[in-house]
Protein backbone atom coordinates (compact mmCIF):
# COMPACT_ATOMS: atom_id res chain seq x y z
CA UNK A 1 0.00 0.00 0.00
CA UNK A 2 2.86 2.36 0.75
CA UNK A 3 4.18 1.86 -2.76
CA UNK A 4 5.72 5.10 -3.98
CA UNK A 5 7.76 5.47 -7.13
CA UNK A 6 10.12 8.10 -8.49
CA UNK A 7 8.95 10.18 -11.43
CA UNK A 8 10.23 13.29 -13.17
CA UNK A 9 8.30 16.56 -13.03
CA UNK A 10 7.48 17.66 -16.61
CA UNK A 11 5.46 20.76 -15.76
CA UNK A 12 3.73 22.37 -12.81
CA UNK A 13 0.34 24.07 -12.73
CA UNK A 14 -2.41 25.08 -10.34
CA UNK A 15 -5.73 23.31 -9.99
CA UNK A 16 -8.45 24.25 -7.50
CA UNK A 17 -5.88 26.18 -5.48
CA UNK A 18 -3.39 23.27 -5.24
CA UNK A 19 0.03 23.04 -6.89
CA UNK A 20 0.01 20.06 -9.24
CA UNK A 21 2.60 18.48 -11.49
CA UNK A 22 2.56 16.37 -14.61
CA UNK A 23 4.89 13.50 -13.78
CA UNK A 24 6.67 11.16 -16.16
CA UNK A 25 7.39 7.57 -15.13
CA UNK A 26 9.55 6.28 -17.99
CA UNK A 27 6.97 7.25 -20.62
CA UNK A 28 3.78 6.87 -18.59
CA UNK A 29 2.47 10.23 -17.47
CA UNK A 30 0.16 11.11 -14.65
CA UNK A 31 -0.72 14.04 -12.41
CA UNK A 32 0.36 14.37 -8.81
CA UNK A 33 -0.24 17.00 -6.16
CA UNK A 34 3.00 18.86 -5.33
CA UNK A 35 1.72 20.79 -2.34
CA UNK A 36 3.97 18.83 0.07
CA UNK A 37 7.10 19.31 -2.05
CA UNK A 38 6.94 23.03 -2.86
CA UNK A 39 10.60 23.10 -3.95
CA UNK A 40 9.96 20.59 -6.75
CA UNK A 41 10.58 22.11 -10.14
CA UNK A 42 10.58 20.92 -13.73
CA UNK A 43 13.24 18.21 -13.96
CA UNK A 44 13.11 17.21 -10.26
CA UNK A 45 12.49 13.57 -9.40
CA UNK A 46 9.71 13.22 -6.86
CA UNK A 47 8.52 10.17 -4.92
CA UNK A 48 4.81 9.82 -5.62
CA UNK A 49 2.30 7.86 -3.56
CA UNK A 50 -1.48 7.82 -4.10
CA UNK A 51 -1.47 11.02 -6.14
CA UNK A 52 0.82 13.04 -3.86
CA UNK A 53 4.54 13.76 -4.12
CA UNK A 54 5.97 12.97 -0.67
CA UNK A 55 9.61 13.93 -1.16
CA UNK A 56 12.05 15.16 -3.76
CA UNK A 57 14.51 12.39 -4.57
CA UNK A 58 18.02 13.41 -3.59
CA UNK A 59 19.95 12.62 -6.77
CA UNK A 60 23.37 13.22 -5.18
CA UNK A 61 22.61 10.67 -2.46
CA UNK A 62 21.33 8.19 -5.05
CA UNK A 63 24.55 8.49 -7.09
CA UNK A 64 26.72 8.26 -3.97
CA UNK A 65 24.88 5.08 -2.83
CA UNK A 66 25.30 3.49 -6.24
CA UNK A 67 29.02 4.36 -6.35
CA UNK A 68 29.54 2.87 -2.89
CA UNK A 69 27.62 -0.30 -3.76
CA UNK A 70 29.54 -0.80 -7.03
CA UNK A 71 32.78 -0.49 -5.10
CA UNK A 72 31.58 -3.18 -2.69
CA UNK A 73 30.51 -5.44 -5.58
CA UNK A 74 33.98 -5.02 -7.17
CA UNK A 75 35.80 -5.87 -3.95
CA UNK A 76 33.67 -8.99 -3.50
CA UNK A 77 34.30 -10.02 -7.10
CA UNK A 78 38.08 -9.60 -6.59
CA UNK A 79 37.94 -11.69 -3.42
CA UNK A 80 36.05 -14.42 -5.17
CA UNK A 81 38.57 -14.52 -8.01
CA UNK A 82 41.44 -14.70 -5.52
CA UNK A 83 39.78 -17.57 -3.66
CA UNK A 84 39.09 -19.42 -6.92
CA UNK A 85 42.73 -18.99 -7.98
CA UNK A 86 43.88 -20.60 -4.73
Amino acid sequence: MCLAIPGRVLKTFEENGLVMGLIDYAGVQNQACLTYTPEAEVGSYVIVHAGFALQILNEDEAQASLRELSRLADIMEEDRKEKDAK
Partner: protein
Amino acid sequence: MKYLDEFRDPQLAKGLLEEIKRAVTGPWVIMEICGGQTHSIMRYGIDQLLPPEITLVHGPGCPVCVTPLETIDRALAIAARPDVIFTSFGDMLRVPGSSDDLFRVKSRGGDVRMVYSPLEAVKMARENPDREVVFLAVGFETTAPGNAMAIKQAAAEGLTNFSEIVSHVLVPPAMEAILSSPACRVQGFLAAGHVCTIMGWDEYEPIAAKYRVPIVPTGFEPVDILEGILKTVQLLENGQPGVENQYLRVVSAEGNPAARAVVDEIYTVCDRKWRGIGMIPGSGLMIRDEMAAFDAEKKFKVEGIVTEEPEICISGEILQGLKKPHECPAFGKECTPTSPLGATMVSSEGACAAYHKYSRKGLL
Protein backbone atom coordinates in the same frame (compact mmCIF):
# COMPACT_ATOMS: atom_id res chain seq x y z
CA MET B 1 12.91 3.43 -14.89
CA LYS B 2 15.52 5.82 -13.55
CA TYR B 3 16.27 5.39 -9.83
CA LEU B 4 14.45 2.06 -9.81
CA ASP B 5 16.36 -0.14 -12.25
CA GLU B 6 19.75 0.71 -10.77
CA PHE B 7 18.57 -0.62 -7.44
CA ARG B 8 17.63 -3.93 -9.04
CA ASP B 9 21.10 -4.57 -10.45
CA PRO B 10 22.03 -8.25 -9.84
CA GLN B 11 25.77 -7.39 -9.62
CA LEU B 12 25.18 -4.97 -6.75
CA ALA B 13 22.86 -7.47 -5.08
CA LYS B 14 25.50 -10.17 -5.34
CA GLY B 15 28.17 -7.98 -3.74
CA LEU B 16 25.83 -7.17 -0.84
CA LEU B 17 24.90 -10.79 -0.36
CA GLU B 18 28.55 -11.81 -0.09
CA GLU B 19 29.23 -9.02 2.37
CA ILE B 20 26.25 -10.15 4.47
CA LYS B 21 27.60 -13.71 4.47
CA ARG B 22 30.97 -12.43 5.57
CA ALA B 23 29.57 -10.19 8.31
CA VAL B 24 27.12 -12.58 9.93
CA THR B 25 27.81 -14.93 12.81
CA GLY B 26 24.18 -14.74 14.04
CA PRO B 27 21.67 -16.24 14.44
CA TRP B 28 19.49 -13.14 14.02
CA VAL B 29 15.77 -12.58 13.56
CA ILE B 30 15.02 -9.45 11.56
CA MET B 31 11.55 -8.08 10.85
CA GLU B 32 10.70 -6.08 7.76
CA ILE B 33 7.85 -3.83 8.81
CA CYS B 34 6.32 -3.03 5.48
CA GLY B 35 4.21 -5.31 3.29
CA GLY B 36 5.82 -3.76 0.21
CA GLN B 37 9.17 -5.02 1.48
CA THR B 38 7.70 -8.49 2.18
CA HIS B 39 6.48 -8.51 -1.41
CA SER B 40 9.96 -7.62 -2.78
CA ILE B 41 11.65 -10.20 -0.55
CA MET B 42 9.39 -12.97 -1.88
CA ARG B 43 9.48 -11.76 -5.46
CA TYR B 44 13.27 -11.75 -5.64
CA GLY B 45 13.68 -14.79 -3.38
CA ILE B 46 15.84 -12.76 -0.98
CA ASP B 47 14.84 -14.91 2.02
CA GLN B 48 16.23 -17.97 0.26
CA LEU B 49 19.48 -16.30 -0.77
CA LEU B 50 20.38 -15.17 2.73
CA PRO B 51 22.69 -17.24 4.91
CA PRO B 52 20.84 -19.59 7.31
CA GLU B 53 21.87 -17.46 10.31
CA ILE B 54 19.34 -14.80 9.24
CA THR B 55 15.60 -15.32 9.61
CA LEU B 56 13.29 -12.70 8.16
CA VAL B 57 9.87 -12.36 9.75
CA HIS B 58 7.15 -10.28 8.25
CA GLY B 59 5.65 -7.34 10.06
CA PRO B 60 2.22 -5.77 10.32
CA GLY B 61 2.94 -3.21 7.60
CA CYS B 62 -0.04 -3.76 5.36
CA PRO B 63 -2.80 -1.29 6.23
CA VAL B 64 -5.29 -3.29 4.18
CA CYS B 65 -4.57 -6.35 6.35
CA VAL B 66 -4.90 -4.60 9.70
CA THR B 67 -8.04 -2.54 9.03
CA PRO B 68 -10.51 -3.80 11.67
CA LEU B 69 -13.37 -5.95 10.52
CA GLU B 70 -15.87 -3.55 12.15
CA THR B 71 -14.58 -0.75 9.92
CA ILE B 72 -14.93 -2.90 6.81
CA ASP B 73 -18.45 -3.96 7.78
CA ARG B 74 -19.41 -0.34 8.47
CA ALA B 75 -17.91 0.73 5.12
CA LEU B 76 -19.90 -1.99 3.36
CA ALA B 77 -23.13 -0.78 4.98
CA ILE B 78 -22.45 2.82 3.92
CA ALA B 79 -21.39 1.76 0.40
CA ALA B 80 -24.73 -0.02 -0.08
CA ARG B 81 -26.73 3.19 0.47
CA PRO B 82 -28.39 4.47 -2.72
CA ASP B 83 -27.44 8.11 -2.04
CA VAL B 84 -23.73 7.30 -1.72
CA ILE B 85 -20.85 7.20 -4.19
CA PHE B 86 -18.35 5.07 -2.29
CA THR B 87 -14.68 5.54 -3.16
CA SER B 88 -11.60 3.65 -2.11
CA PHE B 89 -8.10 2.67 -3.21
CA GLY B 90 -8.15 -0.48 -5.32
CA ASP B 91 -6.55 -2.71 -2.66
CA MET B 92 -9.56 -2.34 -0.35
CA LEU B 93 -12.16 -3.57 -2.84
CA ARG B 94 -11.70 -7.29 -2.23
CA VAL B 95 -11.08 -7.22 1.50
CA PRO B 96 -13.63 -9.54 3.09
CA GLY B 97 -15.93 -8.17 5.75
CA SER B 98 -17.90 -10.59 7.90
CA SER B 99 -20.03 -11.72 4.99
CA ASP B 100 -19.39 -9.39 2.05
CA ASP B 101 -16.86 -7.22 0.21
CA LEU B 102 -17.00 -3.97 -1.78
CA PHE B 103 -16.91 -5.78 -5.12
CA ARG B 104 -20.06 -7.71 -4.23
CA VAL B 105 -21.76 -4.53 -3.01
CA LYS B 106 -20.93 -3.04 -6.42
CA SER B 107 -22.27 -6.06 -8.30
CA ARG B 108 -25.55 -5.65 -6.42
CA GLY B 109 -25.84 -2.09 -7.71
CA GLY B 110 -23.84 -0.10 -5.13
CA ASP B 111 -21.98 2.86 -6.63
CA VAL B 112 -18.45 1.82 -5.63
CA ARG B 113 -15.58 3.50 -7.47
CA MET B 114 -11.86 2.97 -7.27
CA VAL B 115 -9.70 6.07 -7.05
CA TYR B 116 -5.97 6.53 -7.46
CA SER B 117 -5.83 9.75 -5.43
CA PRO B 118 -8.20 10.96 -2.68
CA LEU B 119 -8.45 14.23 -4.64
CA GLU B 120 -10.43 12.30 -7.27
CA ALA B 121 -13.06 11.61 -4.61
CA VAL B 122 -13.21 15.34 -3.85
CA LYS B 123 -13.68 15.99 -7.56
CA MET B 124 -16.60 13.54 -7.63
CA ALA B 125 -18.17 15.44 -4.72
CA ARG B 126 -17.73 18.71 -6.62
CA GLU B 127 -19.33 17.25 -9.74
CA ASN B 128 -22.17 15.40 -7.98
CA PRO B 129 -23.64 17.91 -5.51
CA ASP B 130 -26.80 15.82 -5.10
CA ARG B 131 -24.88 12.69 -4.00
CA GLU B 132 -22.84 11.91 -0.89
CA VAL B 133 -19.25 10.96 -1.72
CA VAL B 134 -17.55 8.82 0.92
CA PHE B 135 -13.85 7.92 0.82
CA LEU B 136 -12.43 4.99 2.79
CA ALA B 137 -9.22 6.47 4.21
CA VAL B 138 -6.86 3.72 5.27
CA GLY B 139 -3.09 3.62 5.32
CA PHE B 140 0.00 4.41 7.34
CA GLU B 141 1.79 7.73 7.81
CA THR B 142 2.62 7.58 4.09
CA THR B 143 -1.00 7.90 2.99
CA ALA B 144 -2.34 10.16 5.74
CA PRO B 145 -1.11 13.48 4.24
CA GLY B 146 -3.01 12.92 0.97
CA ASN B 147 -6.14 11.77 2.74
CA ALA B 148 -5.96 14.74 5.13
CA MET B 149 -5.51 17.11 2.18
CA ALA B 150 -8.73 15.76 0.63
CA ILE B 151 -10.69 16.97 3.69
CA LYS B 152 -8.79 20.27 3.80
CA GLN B 153 -9.60 20.81 0.14
CA ALA B 154 -13.29 19.88 0.56
CA ALA B 155 -13.50 22.30 3.50
CA ALA B 156 -11.80 25.08 1.50
CA GLU B 157 -14.31 24.62 -1.32
CA GLY B 158 -17.26 24.48 1.09
CA LEU B 159 -18.29 20.99 -0.04
CA THR B 160 -20.79 19.46 2.36
CA ASN B 161 -21.23 16.15 0.51
CA PHE B 162 -17.71 14.76 1.04
CA SER B 163 -16.73 12.61 4.01
CA GLU B 164 -14.20 9.97 5.01
CA ILE B 165 -14.24 6.75 7.01
CA VAL B 166 -10.84 7.09 8.65
CA SER B 167 -8.95 4.03 9.81
CA HIS B 168 -5.38 5.25 9.70
CA VAL B 169 -2.68 3.42 11.60
CA LEU B 170 0.74 4.49 12.89
CA VAL B 171 3.87 2.36 12.76
CA PRO B 172 5.95 3.19 15.89
CA PRO B 173 3.26 2.12 18.42
CA ALA B 174 2.92 -1.19 16.57
CA MET B 175 6.69 -1.70 16.74
CA GLU B 176 6.55 -1.05 20.46
CA ALA B 177 3.66 -3.51 20.85
CA ILE B 178 5.72 -6.18 19.08
CA LEU B 179 8.87 -5.42 21.07
CA SER B 180 7.14 -5.42 24.44
CA SER B 181 5.38 -8.75 23.88
CA PRO B 182 6.98 -11.53 25.97
CA ALA B 183 6.89 -13.78 22.89
CA CYS B 184 8.86 -11.26 20.80
CA ARG B 185 11.71 -12.80 18.84
CA VAL B 186 12.55 -9.80 16.67
CA GLN B 187 16.10 -8.50 17.19
CA GLY B 188 16.27 -5.83 14.51
CA PHE B 189 13.96 -3.96 12.14
CA LEU B 190 13.97 -2.82 8.56
CA ALA B 191 11.74 0.24 9.01
CA ALA B 192 9.28 1.16 6.27
CA GLY B 193 11.04 3.62 3.96
CA HIS B 194 8.00 5.47 2.69
CA VAL B 195 6.51 5.94 6.15
CA CYS B 196 9.81 7.65 6.99
CA THR B 197 9.54 10.05 4.02
CA ILE B 198 6.83 11.76 6.09
CA MET B 199 7.88 11.06 9.68
CA GLY B 200 11.67 11.14 9.25
CA TRP B 201 13.85 8.62 10.99
CA ASP B 202 14.43 10.50 14.21
CA GLU B 203 11.18 9.24 15.74
CA TYR B 204 12.75 5.75 15.89
CA GLU B 205 15.69 6.78 18.05
CA PRO B 206 13.79 6.54 21.36
CA ILE B 207 12.47 3.06 20.39
CA ALA B 208 15.94 1.85 19.39
CA ALA B 209 17.34 3.14 22.69
CA LYS B 210 14.52 1.82 24.90
CA TYR B 211 14.46 -1.72 23.47
CA ARG B 212 18.12 -1.78 22.45
CA VAL B 213 17.44 -2.81 18.85
CA PRO B 214 18.83 -1.65 15.53
CA ILE B 215 16.28 0.05 13.27
CA VAL B 216 17.20 0.67 9.63
CA PRO B 217 14.82 2.69 7.43
CA THR B 218 15.00 0.79 4.15
CA GLY B 219 13.77 1.13 0.58
CA PHE B 220 11.86 -1.37 -1.51
CA GLU B 221 14.10 -2.56 -4.31
CA PRO B 222 16.16 -5.74 -3.86
CA VAL B 223 19.45 -3.83 -3.53
CA ASP B 224 17.86 -1.56 -0.91
CA ILE B 225 16.58 -4.51 1.07
CA LEU B 226 19.91 -6.34 0.97
CA GLU B 227 21.73 -3.19 2.06
CA GLY B 228 19.18 -2.70 4.85
CA ILE B 229 19.80 -6.27 6.01
CA LEU B 230 23.57 -5.76 5.84
CA LYS B 231 23.37 -2.62 7.97
CA THR B 232 21.07 -4.34 10.48
CA VAL B 233 23.40 -7.36 10.70
CA GLN B 234 26.44 -5.11 11.20
CA LEU B 235 24.69 -3.23 14.02
CA LEU B 236 23.62 -6.53 15.61
CA GLU B 237 27.07 -8.07 15.32
CA ASN B 238 28.66 -4.97 16.87
CA GLY B 239 26.09 -4.90 19.67
CA GLN B 240 25.02 -1.44 18.60
CA PRO B 241 21.36 -0.55 18.95
CA GLY B 242 20.40 2.61 17.10
CA VAL B 243 19.03 3.97 13.86
CA GLU B 244 20.94 3.87 10.60
CA ASN B 245 19.32 5.12 7.44
CA GLN B 246 19.69 2.96 4.32
CA TYR B 247 17.22 4.93 2.17
CA LEU B 248 19.33 8.08 1.95
CA ARG B 249 18.01 9.19 -1.43
CA VAL B 250 14.49 9.58 -0.05
CA VAL B 251 14.49 9.66 3.75
CA SER B 252 15.86 12.45 5.96
CA ALA B 253 15.92 12.76 9.74
CA GLU B 254 13.07 15.27 9.80
CA GLY B 255 10.82 13.79 7.10
CA ASN B 256 8.25 16.12 5.60
CA PRO B 257 7.05 18.67 8.22
CA ALA B 258 4.64 20.38 5.78
CA ALA B 259 2.80 17.08 5.27
CA ARG B 260 2.74 16.37 9.01
CA ALA B 261 1.25 19.80 9.70
CA VAL B 262 -1.76 19.10 7.48
CA VAL B 263 -2.22 15.65 9.03
CA ASP B 264 -2.27 17.32 12.48
CA GLU B 265 -4.73 19.93 11.33
CA ILE B 266 -7.29 17.34 10.19
CA TYR B 267 -6.63 14.18 12.21
CA THR B 268 -5.72 13.42 15.81
CA VAL B 269 -4.05 10.41 17.43
CA CYS B 270 -6.37 7.78 18.93
CA ASP B 271 -6.26 4.21 20.19
CA ARG B 272 -6.87 1.78 17.36
CA LYS B 273 -7.72 -1.86 17.02
CA TRP B 274 -5.58 -3.72 14.48
CA ARG B 275 -7.20 -6.65 12.73
CA GLY B 276 -5.68 -9.86 14.02
CA ILE B 277 -3.63 -8.09 16.71
CA GLY B 278 -6.06 -6.14 18.88
CA MET B 279 -6.06 -2.71 20.49
CA ILE B 280 -2.79 -0.77 20.39
CA PRO B 281 -2.83 2.50 22.38
CA GLY B 282 -2.11 5.66 20.40
CA SER B 283 -1.70 3.73 17.16
CA GLY B 284 -4.34 5.36 14.99
CA LEU B 285 -5.52 8.62 13.50
CA MET B 286 -9.13 9.83 13.58
CA ILE B 287 -10.84 12.98 12.36
CA ARG B 288 -10.62 15.90 14.79
CA ASP B 289 -13.88 17.06 16.41
CA GLU B 290 -13.59 20.40 14.58
CA MET B 291 -13.73 18.46 11.30
CA ALA B 292 -16.62 16.18 12.37
CA ALA B 293 -18.70 17.31 9.38
CA PHE B 294 -16.32 15.27 7.21
CA ASP B 295 -16.56 12.14 9.35
CA ALA B 296 -18.65 9.55 7.49
CA GLU B 297 -19.06 7.42 10.60
CA LYS B 298 -20.78 10.36 12.33
CA LYS B 299 -22.76 11.34 9.25
CA PHE B 300 -24.11 7.86 8.54
CA LYS B 301 -24.75 6.12 11.82
CA VAL B 302 -24.44 2.39 11.27
CA GLU B 303 -25.73 0.35 14.19
CA GLY B 304 -25.71 -3.32 14.99
CA ILE B 305 -22.37 -4.39 13.53
CA VAL B 306 -21.58 -7.94 14.69
CA THR B 307 -18.29 -9.15 13.31
CA GLU B 308 -17.21 -12.69 12.67
CA GLU B 309 -13.63 -13.80 11.96
CA PRO B 310 -12.89 -17.27 10.59
CA GLU B 311 -11.54 -19.27 13.52
CA ILE B 312 -8.85 -21.08 11.58
CA CYS B 313 -7.04 -17.90 10.50
CA ILE B 314 -3.74 -17.18 12.33
CA SER B 315 -3.06 -13.87 10.56
CA GLY B 316 -2.68 -12.10 13.92
CA GLU B 317 0.32 -14.22 14.83
CA ILE B 318 1.73 -13.79 11.33
CA LEU B 319 1.40 -10.01 11.56
CA GLN B 320 3.37 -10.03 14.82
CA GLY B 321 6.16 -12.13 13.38
CA LEU B 322 5.30 -15.12 15.61
CA LYS B 323 4.34 -17.51 12.80
CA LYS B 324 4.82 -17.86 9.05
CA PRO B 325 1.95 -18.27 6.56
CA HIS B 326 2.65 -21.91 5.71
CA GLU B 327 2.16 -22.80 9.36
CA CYS B 328 -1.55 -22.00 8.92
CA PRO B 329 -3.58 -25.17 8.31
CA ALA B 330 -5.79 -23.34 5.79
CA PHE B 331 -2.89 -21.91 3.75
CA GLY B 332 -3.24 -22.87 0.09
CA LYS B 333 -6.17 -25.15 0.93
CA GLU B 334 -9.37 -23.46 2.14
CA CYS B 335 -7.56 -20.11 1.90
CA THR B 336 -6.14 -18.90 -1.43
CA PRO B 337 -5.91 -15.47 -3.10
CA THR B 338 -9.08 -16.21 -5.08
CA SER B 339 -11.03 -17.23 -1.98
CA PRO B 340 -9.24 -15.59 0.94
CA LEU B 341 -10.25 -16.23 4.54
CA GLY B 342 -8.14 -13.52 6.10
CA ALA B 343 -6.90 -10.10 5.09
CA THR B 344 -3.25 -11.21 4.85
CA MET B 345 -4.30 -13.36 1.88
CA VAL B 346 -6.35 -10.62 0.18
CA SER B 347 -3.93 -7.78 -0.07
CA SER B 348 -1.11 -8.38 -2.52
CA GLU B 349 1.15 -7.07 0.22
CA GLY B 350 -0.15 -9.46 2.84
CA ALA B 351 2.38 -12.09 3.90
CA CYS B 352 0.05 -15.01 3.06
CA ALA B 353 -0.60 -13.69 -0.45
CA ALA B 354 3.12 -13.05 -1.03
CA TYR B 355 4.00 -16.60 0.06
CA HIS B 356 1.28 -18.00 -2.15
CA LYS B 357 2.14 -15.98 -5.24
CA TYR B 358 5.86 -16.41 -5.65
CA SER B 359 7.44 -19.56 -6.92
CA ARG B 360 10.45 -18.39 -4.91
CA LYS B 361 13.11 -18.54 -7.58
CA GLY B 362 16.20 -16.49 -6.88
CA LEU B 363 17.33 -13.34 -8.62
CA LEU B 364 20.96 -14.31 -8.90
